Structures are given as C-alpha cells and as structure tokens.
C-alpha cells in the first residue's frame, strides 16, 4: 500500500463513520410545544425545507391540533405530507401554508413523513 492508498483508506473510513454518526446518532432535533389559541386549538407553525422545522412537536391529548405547514421550497421531495396514524395525505403547495387539523386521542409518538418517507418529524402526544 502506498501513501495515497493509506490516506484514501483512512479518509474513506472516517467519512463513512461521519455519515453514520451524522444521520443516525447526532441529535440536535428541534422540539416545540404547541401554543393553545383562545379557542382551545393547539397551533404549531412548521417550515418545510429539506426537512421539518421544528421536527418534534409536542401537543396535549384530546385537544384539537392545527399544524400550519409552510413549504419553503419547490423541490418535489417534500410535496406530499403523510401522517398515516391520522389517515392524512396532503399535497403541500410550494411557498404556501397548508393547514392540517387533527384530534390526538391517544398519547404516543406519531411520525409524519414526506411522500417517500425520507423527511421525518414526529408529533408527540402527551
């Protein structure tokens, strides 16, 4: 093995380790709790751009929830929003706000994803 091979090997393994750590273990998720409006609806604003910000949303059980998804990109990956636990499939028009209303009746963590399951966020019902 010559020097460049050793360098490539080390850099390659290092990069692989970084990818695994960055996508699977690194944790800096944004958590937001819903704000209840005067009418008792828990409202959360979410920006969709290569992911969901915030991507962990905490709401209370039994109170209606209104999620406002603002899709700040045209990239087709995020054009659909899926919340299978609430039977919701929505098209999110680009640069528009789409309201999604639901009533969380059970406590738990429910994921929401884009149409292909690449972008992920979760709704934590307490």
């Amino acid at each position, binding site marked *: *093995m*010559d020097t*460049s*091979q050793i360098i*490539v*090997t080390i850099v*390659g*393994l290092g*990069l*692989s380790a970084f*990818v*695994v750590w*960055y*996508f*699977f273990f*690194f944790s*800096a998720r944004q958590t937001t709790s819903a704000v209840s409006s005067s009418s008792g609806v828990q409202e959360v604003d979410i920006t969709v*751009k*290569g*992911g*969901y*910000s915030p*991507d962990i949303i905490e709401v209370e059980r039994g109170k209606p929830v209104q999620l406002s998804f603002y899709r700040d*990109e*045209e*990239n*087709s*990956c995020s054009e659909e929003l*899926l*919340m*299978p*636990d*609430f*039977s*919701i*499939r*929505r*098209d999110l*028009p*680009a640069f*528009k*706000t*789409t*309201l*999604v*209303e639901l009533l969380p009746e059970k406590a738990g963590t429910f994921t929401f994803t*884009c*149409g*292909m*399951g*690449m*972008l*992920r966020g979760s709704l934590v019902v307490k």
Partner: protein
Amino acid sequence: MEPATKTETLDIEGMTCASCAAAVEKSLSRAPGVQSALVNFATEKATVHYLPGQASPATLKEAVINAGYGVMERPPDTSAAERSDEIDRQKALAYQTLKRRFWVATVLAIIIMPLSMLMLWPAMMARVNMPLLNYAMLLLTLPVLLYSGREFYVSAWNGFKHRSANMDTLIAVGTGAAFLYSLAATVVPEFFTSRGLMPEVYYDTTATIIALILLGKLMELRAKTQTSAAMRSLIGLQAKTARVVRPDGAEVDVPIAQVQLGDIVLVRPGEKVATDGRITEGQSAVDEAMLTGESLPVEKKTGDPVFGATLNKTGSFRFEVTKVGADTMLSQIVKLVEDAQGSRAPIQRLADKVSAIFVPTVVVISILTFVLWFDLAPAETRLPLALVNFVAVLIIACPCALGLATPTAIMVSTGKGAEHGVLIRNAEALEKAYQVNTVLLDKTGTITKGEPAVTDFVAPGQDGARLLQVVAAVERQSEHPLAEAVVRHADDQGGDKLTATDFRAVEGKGAAATVDGQAVLIGNRRLLAEEGINLSPELTAQAEQLLSQARTVLYVAVAGQAVGLLGVADTVRDTSVAAIKKLQALGIEVVMMTGDNPQTAAQVAGQVGITRYFAEVLPADKAGKVKELQGEGRIVAMVGDGINDAPALAQADIGLAVGSGTDVAMEAAGITLMRSDLNGVVTAIELSRQTIRTIKQNLFFAFIYNTLGIPVAAGLLYPFFGILLSPMLAAAAMALSSVSVLANSLRLRSFDNH
C-alpha cells in the same frame, strides 16, 4: 341603469345557532353599500352583494365583527375540492418547469456526448487541442448543473442541514463528484499528468445522468397524477349550481355554496341533482352509478331521498335540501377515500424501515466502494475506476421505488373501489380483505332483499285474478309488512281494483273486511279456526307443501269458505347466486347466518348454493358466530347491514357493511358497500387481492432492484466477468425503476368487476 354590484363570500366564525346567522345577516344588510346579504348557518358562509364604491371586503368584515362574530381568512384547506384547484395549477406549472429543465439537459448532453467520444479516437485527439475541448465541454455542462440539476443540490443541502438524506442527496453527491473531478482535470491537468494519470473528464456522465434522472422524474410526475384521477373525477362530480324555487314560486339558479337547508330545488330530466335532499313533488328515475356503482337507474317518488351529483333521467321533481356542503354523501365519500389514501398499509412496514436508513447506508457503501477500488485496482487506473464505481453506486440506488411501491397502489385501488361503490376505510382493511378465506353473510338484506314477497298463490276452482284483487282490497288497508307484499303482488298482476269496507285488523292473526258484500278473512290458520272455517283436504295439502318450502302461509276465506292460500317469503336477490358462486370460485367458503328456523335457512342456503349455515341466530349471538369461525382458524369477512350487525362487523377480521345508501361513515366496517347486493363483496375481495398482489410485486421489484443493482454498480462482477456498470446506465436503470413501479400500480386502473 343600476350600478354593477360585486359579490363577496365571507367565512363567518363563531356562529353557534341559527339566530346568530340572522344577527350577522342583519348587521351586514345594514352596512352602507350592501344590497343584499345571505348567511348560511350550515356552511358558515355569508354571501354579500354590494356596491364597490360604498363598501369593501374590509367594511363587510367590520360589520360582521360589530355583530360580535369573526371573519375567517379563507383557510387553504377547507375541502378537497377547493384545495385541488390550486394544487393542480401548481403541479401543471411544476411539470412545465421540469420539462424545460429536462430538455435543456438533454440537448446539452447530446452535444457533449460526441465531443467526449473524440477522446477515444486517437487520430482525432492528435488534431484537437485537448485543454480547449475540455473547457468547451465544461461550459456546456455548467447550465445542466446550474439550471437543470440545481434542485438536486439545493435539496440535498437543505436535507443535510436537517440530517435527512433523500434521493437528491445521492444524485447531488454522485454528479457533484464526477463534475468536480472533471473540473480539476480541466483546470489543473498538470496535477494529474505529473502523477502519471490521464486527466480524464466526465462531463458527458454528469450531463447524461442529470438528463436521465429528469426524464424519470418527468414520467413519474405524469404517472402520479393518474394515481389520483379517480379521486379528481369524484370531486368533479359536484354540481356547480342549483335551481332553487323561492317561496314566491320564482326559479333562481344559485351557486351551490349558497344553497341552504330547507330550500326547494327543482331538477329537470338530464340535470344533475345539486345536493342531498328528499323529494317533495314529482317522480323520476335517477342514475346513482357515480355514488353506488349500480348501473340501473333507481326509481324515485315523493318522500324518497336523492343525492347530490346523481343524474336525473326521466321526470322532473322538486326536493327539499336536507344536507349541504361537507355533510352530503358525495363529500363523505370523498373524505373517506381521501382518508384511505392517507393511511399506511402494514405490509409497508419493512419498506418504511428500510427507506429511513436507505440513503445514508448507500452513501457509506459508495465510500467503501471508492476505497476498495482505490486500494485494489492497478495504480494507473485506480482513481478513475474508484470514481466511476463510486458514482454508479450512488446513482443506481433508488429509494423512490420503495417509497412508491405501496402508496401508489393504494391510491389507485381506493379510487377504483369508489367508482364501483366499494368504499375502503384504510389500507389495513384492504390488506385484511386480501387474507380472507371465509365470508359470513347475514341472510336478511344481503342474500335476500329483506322484504317479504308473494311467491305462491293457490286458489283451486276459483277465479284467481279476481280473488287476488279481493284479497288486495282488504290488505290495502292493513299496515302489516305481509299485507304490503300481497298488495304489491296484486298490483304487479294488474286487474281492476276493488274497495273493502268494515276493515278490522285482528291482532296477531290477520284482517277481516267486506268486499262486494261478501265477508273476507285473511290471516293465519288460527284466524280461520276461530271463525269455525275448515280447510278442504286439497288446501291443507297445499299448505303443508308451502310450509315445507319455508313459506309463510296466508289463508283466505270468502263468505265463510276457505278458498285460497298465499305463500310469502323473503326473496333472494337476483344477483346473490352469481355473486356467491364467484366468491366460491375465488376459493372462499361462504357461510350464511340467519335468525330463521333451520328449515327456512336450509331452503335459502340450498337455493343460493351455500352448504354451511347457522340458523336461529339471535342478534346478540352474531358476533359469537364470527368468533366461532375464527376459532377454526379462519380469516372471516362479515357482511352485514352496519347497524344491527355492528358488533359482528367489529369482531370479524374485516367487516363489510352493506350500505342502506344513507350513511357511508359506518364506523365498525372496514369496507362499506354502497350497493346493497353481494356483487360489492366480490368486487371488494377481488380488488383487494389485485391490489396486494400489485404491492407485493412492487416491493419485491424495489428490493431486488436495489439489492442486485448496488453490488453490480460497485463492481462486484468485475473480478469474475470483467463487467462494470457505467454510471449513465445506472442513471437509466434508476429512472426506469421508479417508473416501472408506478406503471405497475397504474395497471390497477383497468380493474373491472366482471
């Protein structure tokens, strides 16, 4: 001339009762410049006609607020119908942009390709200036990257910031690496030559990959619009206007949003029924196929319900509006289909888990591929080989095929189901229906019509036609269901109607009256016995025979003489025999359950070809019977009417509620059949089988494609067969893979219930 008025529709917030609507209306009417204001409490909308000079949406809003209510800014997602317009517009726009990006990439790739081929031709190479050619190709590639492929890089970067990686990440890294390498070879070729390497460029690869991926996306987008075609046509069924008859008799065409509960709407032949209601005047045949899948028009008369979006065929009628907006049957169907399309099938679970870790895993595999090639290949070719295989791995991997496999099939099939009057609650229901091997039918209302009909009329030595009219004259005054069956039968036979006097109902036994001066008795045997009337041996024999055929027997006596018999039974639907045969042909055991005595049960079962049945089942025991069958290890589908059978429907692995045509939102049932015959059951099961088969094919294909494609792209075959996959071929394969999955799902559109 009257100045032009403008119309504004406001969404009113906070109205809790009809009098609130009146208050809002009053406040709006009094506002300056307002000519008329109409507030619909049910839809929470106010329609205001106003003079633009004297009023504006802002002053109208103020008037509403003054009355103590609020005006909602129109929310973007009020209903599927309203949403779909905007989304369709955006999608059409996105399609156009994508098409342009594709063409730019394609044209440039077609120019770059032959230029890069020059390098393979030594005679030519000697004549052209290599660095200059490279710069020319760089210039041609830049628009492909910056215009056509821009979205990939932006999206990959946005995703990276969120620690999420998607298909764009793979394309961005793959094409990015090929481009950067080429850029280095173009700008600083001496770096390569000094190390004994050819400064090769991969501009053709970069441009071709982007062109091919865009082609794939283009085809995907087109196919995807078709998956929701059924849904769109459902939404499109909604009538736009209604001809409302005002209390003063004037007929006015009004937009559907302004129709209110209690309005009288006129429908002429050939017109669409605007919304749900009840006929108050007139009769007609209405085509309800779009809602129920039933191809024959349904006869409607005064008092019958009519549904929005159905088509009036023959007569004209007026109906009173009972439901508007989101409460109508059409809206409920749309909602149900929409919900089903948003649900997730359990079969998808593995694919979901894989997609969640797919992209980062592929990135790691590609890096390792690079390292291995670099370490193992001969020194002079190791860098290009490592690079080419690195790019090929990234490009061939296709998470899309996995992601599209299930939802597209579910979308097509739930839409298709709705077309046939089969409403599927969610993907799980579809999957359960697929596994079913036993169908349990509640006899009444599914196999049979659920209403008694005269099957036999015996009158030895009598004028049968006249006797029937005599009987009908008496029964016409009775309210008993059996009496109704007799009257219906007599009316069907035709003949002069007679009138009966001195009608008297005999509780639990029958009825008596006088027709043409003769005393007539109709009822069970006890009625005749109490009157001291004896049956002739002939009639007794006939009665015995009818009873053995599980008929209910009505005895007729005229002027103290027993003269005839009527056999009454719940009749089997015309479609039941064929439908049950079809189910059995699908390998499903059909079991019947009924509250009738074993004799009747056996008779009906024999008639429709069912071998196993439960007789004398009390309503409370129905769920128990389902359990009993499940105890035998069967996957049971229960078919019932949704109201009385709710516990049994819930107990079954999958419940199919036969709709009464009024309430589509039957909670206990996984599947609702809009048509009340058994063909819907066949459709539901055949559709579920085809759908799940399609999903399995899709998933199999997606998994196999990736598990074979990635190692081949990594160069696994090279040591054995010398085969390497060009990144351009990888791009073509990837584009085709997701399109194939979509195309396979779209095959479900040709599903037909034969």
